[in-house]
């Protein structure tokens, strides 16, 4: 892994001038991922904020080849690119070693694109799939996805008189991907950027299907001041609502263990989307979320061979 100075000196694979919000961390997740792959890359991306802000014709922020096909099929599309790459390489039409990368938002990965992703991983295509998880369908106006934290306000899970934000617990996609018996699957957050970089480097070095789920706060959807994103991402790991770990063929390992596990309310209170939960009558919802976080953390520790 390079140091900060080397990173700064690198030619950017995604340039500035795109139209992401000020303080958009999903874009940072994409940029930094590509900085940690040594080989030339070819990228596939799902429909979503990142695609829409970066490819407005006739401009593009991408200095590397990019294909956007549709919302739910980034993995299937890159499967085809990989098949083409293998065929053309075998026939001597391509000599260079190329790393194939797919990016999808949580909507395009946890929900509508899960089948496509599962299929591609099962078939063992040589690609690194990175889900930039901003916990909602941001491009279409901040709707809930199965990645959205329980209790969060979204446009389709408002805090109403009888229902308080999103009713269901977040889907555990990282575990679903680990169950695919991948040589490498990991969970990261953009706030712990060194940890994330290491994971990208590790995943990209593997010839085979690999997956990283990177929590990437969205200033607009989570309702926080643009400059707070990195600390919010870090706090997710500190509260253990978003543990940092990796798995090689199912053998899980924590890559970061908070010295002292913070209460989940510390994370919630940093974001406007949870504001309604702090009205006294709604305190039980926070307690319920805490119980669920504790339960999942306990299980993960055991799976990682740690003592809870």
């Amino acid at each position, binding site marked *: 892994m390079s140091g900060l100075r080397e990173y700064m000196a690198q030619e950017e694979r995604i340039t500035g001038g795109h139209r992401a919000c000020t303080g958009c961390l999903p874009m940072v997740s994409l940029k930094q991922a590509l900085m940690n792959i040594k080989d030339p890359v070819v990228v596939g991306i799902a429909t979503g904020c990142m695609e829409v802000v970066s490819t407005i014709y006739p401009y593009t922020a991408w200095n590397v080849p*990019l294909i956007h096909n*549709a919302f739910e099929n980034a993995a*299937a599309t890159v499967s085809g690119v990989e098949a083409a790459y293998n065929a053309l390489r075998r026939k001597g039409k391509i000599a260079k070693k*190329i790393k194939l990368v797919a990016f999808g938002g949580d909507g395009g990965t946890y929900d509508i694109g899960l*089948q*496509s992703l599962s299929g591609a991983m099962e078939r063992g295509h040589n690609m690194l799939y990175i889900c930039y998880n901003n916990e909602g369908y941001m491009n279409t106006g901040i709707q809930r996805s199965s990645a959205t934290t329980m209790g969060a306000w979204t446009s389709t899970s408002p805090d109403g008189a009888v229902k308080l934000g999103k009713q269901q617990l977040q889907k555990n996609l990282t575990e679903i991907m680990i169950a695919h018996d991948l040589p490498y699957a990991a969970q990261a957050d953009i706030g712990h950027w060194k940890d994330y970089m290491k994971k990208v480097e590790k995943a990209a070095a593997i010839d085979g299907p690999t997956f990283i789920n990177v929590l990437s706060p969205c200033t607009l959807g989570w309702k926080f001041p643009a400059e707070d994103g990195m600390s919010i991402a870090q706090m997710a790991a500190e509260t253990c609502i978003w543990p940092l770990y990796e798995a090689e063929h199912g053998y899980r390992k924590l890559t970061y263990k908070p010295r002292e596990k913070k209460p989940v309310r510390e994370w919630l209170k940093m974001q406007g989307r949870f504001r309604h939960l702090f009205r006294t009558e709604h305190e039980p919802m926070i307690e319920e979320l805490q119980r669920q976080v504790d339960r999942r953390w306990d299980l993960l520790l055991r799976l990682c061979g740690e003592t809870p």
Partner: protein
Amino acid sequence: MGKRVAMTGNDAAAEAMRQIDPDVVAAYPITPQTELMHKFAEYVADGKVSTEFVLVESEHSAMSATVGASTAGARAMTATSSQGLALMFEILHIASGLRLPIVMPMVNRALSAPLNIHCDHSDSMSCRDTGWLQLYAENTQEVYDNILMAVRIAEHPEVLLPVMICYDGFIISHTMEAVEILDDETAKRFVGEYQPKLQLLDVERPVTVGALYLPDHYFEAKVQQARAHQTAFTVIQEIAQEFTKLCGRSYDYFESYRMEDAERAIIVLGSAAGTAKEVVDRLRSAGERVGLIKLRVFRPFPHHELAKALGRTRAVAVLDRSIAFGSIGGPVYLEVRSALLDQRERVLVLNYVYGLGGRDIFCEDIGSVYEDLRRVIEMGSTETETIYLGVRQEKLEQPVHIEV
């Protein structure tokens, strides 16, 4: 040169694919396309093709992977039927919008509900505005020939559009017929080495594919696509002529069968044309002035050529194997009627829907259509109502669900 062999339509399609030897084929099973891919899988397993065979988890992914492969500079194919095509619908538009020369055998089968695996044209007809070219085959020979020609049409640098090769499920896909196969060398030389214009894998010259077009650019991109369909008109003929030189079989937008001096004509596409020819022969030997137009190219639709071919007739019947629900007639009828609208002498046009869900069509059915045409010529007018050929009137009240 070539050899004559007995083959099913699916085997002939697989044979054409073996000779094309695409870089990438994505596949997902659906009746009646399955045997095509079984056969192709054998070619892959026996090393008779050098194809990367991607066995995806759905047709949506089959088309998505094909789009990815084609963008990457590979000659890429897939094949499907019915529900599979319906599942691909979203990506069909993307394949044509990105101007990818994908070739796809499409074995016609009815759409659910009710569930039915037999032939009609509801599947391909409901994709008629996806921007794909559509060729239809009457028999196994045409399946084989159309697939080879489709590669050339699709990849023509001024066309660059995907092509669907449609053929009737079971009636063609599963029926043994004598087919003349080109020898490998001739076929391969005809198809040629693919020279991709778009090469996503060229990392030295990065390209962004599938960008967002706002209202100031989108319209032009779509009009370019429409123009490519117009160019395809010419290219389809050029390629057909080149093909004829190889094997003597000639192809056009449509086949005019005994149309000289015909005053009554039927227009049909697919295997039913064979049955109709039989009826035309019988009526001709009885001295009746009847003919047949068998459409081969449905997209782009040959309006002018068809108007010319039908201009001298007095009445024509269009036989559709699908319904355009809520419309004045079936998809083929709508096109033919529009094509004939500018004729100085009015041509009466009747619409028939036949053969849905694999209902057989018999010579008597077609005979009755020529009879109807005679009647409307005598009356000098037509009713615009669609006639359902071979439907059982007494069953029209049957319940939709099984009531136990």
